[in-house]
């Protein structure tokens, strides 16, 4: 298979190329841990197995390892630190309740994203419209080299966030998982319970709609 960047250059554009696909991780064979083994060094599959064997402390390590990604995903949906931390906590509580039944058909991260997307979409469906951040513009650093340029950048970012918030739920989730969580299309399909083709089509339509929304704004 040819290098992605080379292919992109051949096609005539010079922008950044998204990272190459990584297939959805197959069901990982967990390295079996002894009860005295240090959990912090264990991989996700071993942590899941340890938890399912009754080692509750394995969940602390799972939280430690995935809390940032889950929090950032939630923040992308709700644009507020307080709401994002509440939702991220909810994601982990749900994961704790369901981890016993997790069959490791996908990676733990993908499974957590799936829970996260469901929690966030449920929340944003109930609590509409999504508040989009003027806080970003308010936090422009006046001491920056070029405050005006910085202001424009933050305004543009706020406009993009507002436009993303208007996308249909599945397109929004697809865009967020692809662009910000850097998930592969296979992982997105797993997280959203769709096919790879549908995940790609959603991503295409998300970008197309985002472009139209940004033009109209």
């Amino acid at each position, binding site marked *: 298979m*040819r*290098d*992605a*960047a*080379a*292919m*992109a250059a*051949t*096609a*005539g*554009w010079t*922008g*950044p*190329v*998204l990272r*190459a*696909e990584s297939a959805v991780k197959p069901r990982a064979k967990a390295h079996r841990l002894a009860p005295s083994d240090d959990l912090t060094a264990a991989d996700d599959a071993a942590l899941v197995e340890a938890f399912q064997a*009754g080692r*509750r402390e394995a*969940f*602390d390590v799972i*939280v*430690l390892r995935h*809390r*940032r990604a889950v*929090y*950032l995903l939630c*923040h*992308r949906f709700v644009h507020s*630190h307080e709401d994002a*931390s509440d939702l*991220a*906590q909810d994601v*982990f*509580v749900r994961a*704790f*309740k369901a981890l*016993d039944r997790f069959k490791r058909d996908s990676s733990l991260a993908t499974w957590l994203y799936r829970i996260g997307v469901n929690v966030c979409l449920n929340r944003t469906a109930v609590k509409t419209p999504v508040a989009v951040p003027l806080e970003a513009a308010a*936090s422009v650093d006046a001491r920056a080299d070029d405050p005006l340029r910085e202001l424009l*950048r933050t305004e*543009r*970012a706020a406009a*993009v*966030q507002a436009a*993303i918030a208007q996308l249909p739920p599945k397109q929004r989730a697809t*865009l967020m998982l692809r*662009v910000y969580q850097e998930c592969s*299309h296979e992982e997105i399909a797993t997280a959203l319970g769709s096919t790879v*083709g549908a995940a*790609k*089509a959603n*991503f*295409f*339509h998300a*970008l*197309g709609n*985002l*472009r139209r929304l*940004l033009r109209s704004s």
Partner: protein
Amino acid sequence: MKTHLTPQEFVDALDGRLSPARVAHVRDCAGCRDEVAGLHATLGQARQVEISEPSPLFWDHFSARVRQATSELPARPRWAFGWRSLGAVASAVGVLVLALLINPAPVPNDTSTVSGGAQPVQELADEDGSLSLLVGLAAELDWSELSQVAAPAEGTADAMIEELTPEQREVLARLLQEEIGDL
């Protein structure tokens, strides 16, 4: 190929994974080239949106919150697993009862070979209403239906026996003794 790119192919183009033939099409087709460029620009705009990271102190606080919330949840309930085991045991007992009904063993003349105190299944069924109901239902099934409905998957029996309590194992052993001892 003269057809324009499909949505999936546009995404492949963004990822730099388009086949050489389709790359050639993009090079020759102004419409597809503009669409790819537009999508690429939009993607670039989306990627520039950053969110501020919370304070490093937040993470420990967050972990503590999650630990607090999960510590209030009950530990993995053993009974939940036990119910599954109970179902499996019930299936196994049902299979044994059905086997007895379908192929009734001759009544032994000398009952001393059966462990002391063991009751025949029919007596158990007479004493236990739910078991007699099972026996009644089983009588209406033939073996082909039974094997489809009640036969446990391979390995289920081993796993099930490992999960039995000593008392349950004793009951199972007694039932098996009754069945095997008569063969």
